[in-house]
């Protein structure tokens, strides 16, 4: 039988590798700032993580008999490794990066059939596995020591930190802003006292604070996210829903009891919220396809994040909240679909249209 090519005969310029490259590009400024701040060990860990992620991807593709070059060239493994590296403590030992990449690529993605098939965000899955398995390594934060400052390790010392771990752990580590807040609140201190001594909103915004690479500069990741929005690689629904939900929850609680609940600005600028809202939660594979579904997904993730941060046993909950909403994605997709032309649509949709008509 003749096999004619089907219409359409032209295609848009969008392609998977291009999308991934633009995401990587938009991540670059925030990443560079993070690496600059935490010096050589951060750079080594970053390179090891993304390198091993690509390597694991290639091995899995080879085993599965898929075209290695073609699929590796879509840069998805690179992005997964990159995002994972953004969530690790910058001075973590090398094996954290390698193990994390293994969890992300092999367990989080390839076991399900590779790109597009994974139910959970691979990077967040890996981070969660690492966090519950190696709590010490995963919570050893250090204060920023930019290149060129006195107490920044040189390349050799940096390599030693990545290879053998931090020599004098207690001397250099300090809690992240969210962790600090939680500890102090737990000791019965009041919020204004805690914040007045340590918290500087400007530093949190620019990113000269401790934390993982992705938890430092809220501004740069916000700008990167806006670039992606402008390029139409992500839609506004998820980030806006997450950020407004968190801000709204924080406003309500801090207005009600400012001694125990931090305000919206603190929540927005600290932790991995910006990175999570623009880069993690918007992962197309694990988020709903319809716009309303995306908004529901974002509100859910925002609520969970606030709940975990405020009442959970971990100071930060981006990974958990995204994973939990990932699990809800098939359900959301099942119930929330766009209305088909010429059909009455769902009852909820009919109700809203009726309201619109009357109002």
């Amino acid at each position: 039988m003749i096999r004619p090519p089907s219409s359409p005969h032209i295609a848009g310029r969008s392609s998977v590798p291009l999308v991934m490259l633009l995401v990587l590009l938009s991540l670059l400024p925030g990443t560079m700032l993070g690496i600059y701040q935490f010096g050589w060990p951060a750079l080594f860990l970053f390179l090891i993580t993304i390198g091993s992620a690509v390597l694991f991807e290639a091995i899995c593709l080879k085993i599965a008999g898929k075209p290695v070059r073609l699929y590796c060239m879509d840069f998805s493994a690179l992005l997964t490794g990159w995002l994972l590296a953004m969530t690790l403590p910058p001075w973590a030992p090398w094996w954290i990066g390698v193990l994390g990449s293994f969890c992300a690529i092999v367990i989080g993605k390839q076991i399900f059939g590779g790109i597009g098939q994974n139910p959970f965000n691979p990077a967040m899955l890996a981070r969660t596995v690492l966090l519950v398995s190696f709590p010490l390594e995963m919570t050893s934060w250090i204060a920023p020591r930019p290149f060129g400052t006195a107490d920044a390790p040189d390349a050799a010392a940096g390599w030693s930190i990545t290879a053998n771990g931090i020599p004098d752990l207690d001397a250099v580590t300090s809690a992240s802003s969210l962790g600090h807040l939680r500890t102090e609140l737990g000791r019965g201190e009041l919020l204004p006292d805690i914040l007045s001594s340590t918290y500087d909103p400007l530093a949190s915004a620019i990113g000269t604070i401790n934390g993982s690479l992705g938890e430092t500069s809220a501004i740069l990741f916000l700008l990167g996210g806006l670039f992606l929005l402008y390029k139409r690689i992500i839609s506004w629904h998820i980030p806006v829903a997450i950020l407004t939900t968190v801000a709204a929850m924080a406003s309500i609680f801090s207005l009600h009891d400012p001694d125990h609940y931090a305000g919206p600005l603190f929540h927005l600028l600290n932790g991995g919220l910006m990175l999570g809202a623009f880069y993690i939660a918007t992962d197309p594979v694990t988020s709903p396809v319809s716009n309303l579904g995306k908004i529901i997904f974002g509100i859910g993730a925002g609520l969970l994040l606030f709940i975990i941060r405020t009442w959970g046993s971990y100071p930060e909950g981006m990974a958990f909240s995204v994973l939990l909403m990932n699990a809800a994605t098939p359900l959301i997709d099942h119930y929330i679909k766009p209305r088909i032309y010429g059909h009455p649509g769902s009852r909820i949709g009919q109700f809203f249209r009726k309201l619109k008509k009357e109002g």
Partner: protein
Amino acid sequence: MPKLSIRGGVHPDEHKLTNEITITRVPTPERLYLPLKQHIGAPAAPDKVIHEIIHKGQIIARAQGSVSANIHAPCSGYVEQITDWAAPHPSGLPTRTMVLVNDGRELRDDVSTPVNPLFLRPEVIAERVSQAGIVGLGGATFPSAVKLTLGQSRNTPVLIINGCECEPYLTCDDRLMQERTQAVMDGIQLLAQALYGPDTIIAIERNKPEAIRLMEIACKDFGNIRVMAVPTRYPMGSEKQLIEYITGRQVPAGKLSADIGVTLHNISTAYAISNAVRHGKPLTHRIVTVAGDAVKRPGNYEVPIGMLISDLLAFCGLKEEPQRILMGGPMMGQALPHAEIPITKGCNGVLAMSRAEVKNSTEHPCIRCASCVDACPIGLSPLTMAAMLKKDKLDQAVDIGLKDCILCGSCSFACPSAIPLVHYFNYGKGELLIRGQQQQKDDEIKRLIQGRQVRMAQQEKEKEEMIAKRMQAIAKRKAAEKAAAEQNSEKEIA
């Protein structure tokens, strides 16, 4: 209440480079190939025999049944043969085709034309449109007269003239509006007249400013006809999308646009109607955009229907061997297996695409990016439907809207993974069609089997009855013989 825009859609590069080139008349070639089915509905039946002499504009094949269309001779000469010739269809399979030989003398019968067709009764206009064999020239090829009669019986208060031409490359409607504004306008008036003077809206995409300007001037004197500039967005020119944009209402699934009081005709159809009703000229020629990087002299050409694409391309010249020849636009047009295929009534463009122009990217796995969901003007989830069809879950695909898909191609165009979504939907729709045909045949065969079984039982019964009757007869005879014998013996004894 017009809407702000349509749902979804895409904006491909327009490539409308031919919109400033004047329409050229193409000389009639030596032979014309006219398929008997160039429209939706039943094929027309030949009205001329082989070797019969024909004059230009004569009916050579007559409409069959209520939905069908006449076919007229675009040249004078004779019928050479009625044969199977490659159809304008991606398969290139043969279809019944009349082959005309052009004698070049352009002989024409005299036709009587009305003094002022605008005084004709609506039914008469519809009748003349039907006689002239006019079908929807935007590509749908639904017989226009049937649409008019439907509009007359349903009394549609809105008439939309579709001048969107949202497909890239194509400019034939644009040129028609620019060059033959008066004739187009006349056709629109006739359409309005045929529908008892409805509110008439000429929809033109904003990327045709010159056409909009000229049409606006032309309809200044008519209170009920106006031009509406619509956003440049594919598939604006799709019937359902345009109706929703202009009226704010959707055509319910399974219903016709006439059911919500709207009739929609194409600009080219209006032009053809003016020709037919005012000048008595049946549909024998149409404007075709010839474009694509492989064409030396792209432009708009007035082509006799039945001309082979190879002849047309030879007239326009080729720079290189085209990678793909399309009939229609690049979004919904059909790729043809070769160029020895005739131009038919619904063909608005012939594109000879070069290698670089044709989409040629490797398929990647779906990353669920939902570009297709955003692009779908109907509100479907193309990614889910394709995944189901991949696993042959036809019923599930139908449940989520396979039948509502208009095959506009926006999803495939937007897909960053280059998944052949429309191909999957073509496949699914084909399977549905075959399934329907098979079901029909199965039912028919079951009826036949039952009929035969009943008949067999009947025959069996008749046979048994006959045997029984015969046995009875034999028994009777024997009894009679016996009685006779006894009588005889009694006699003897006596």
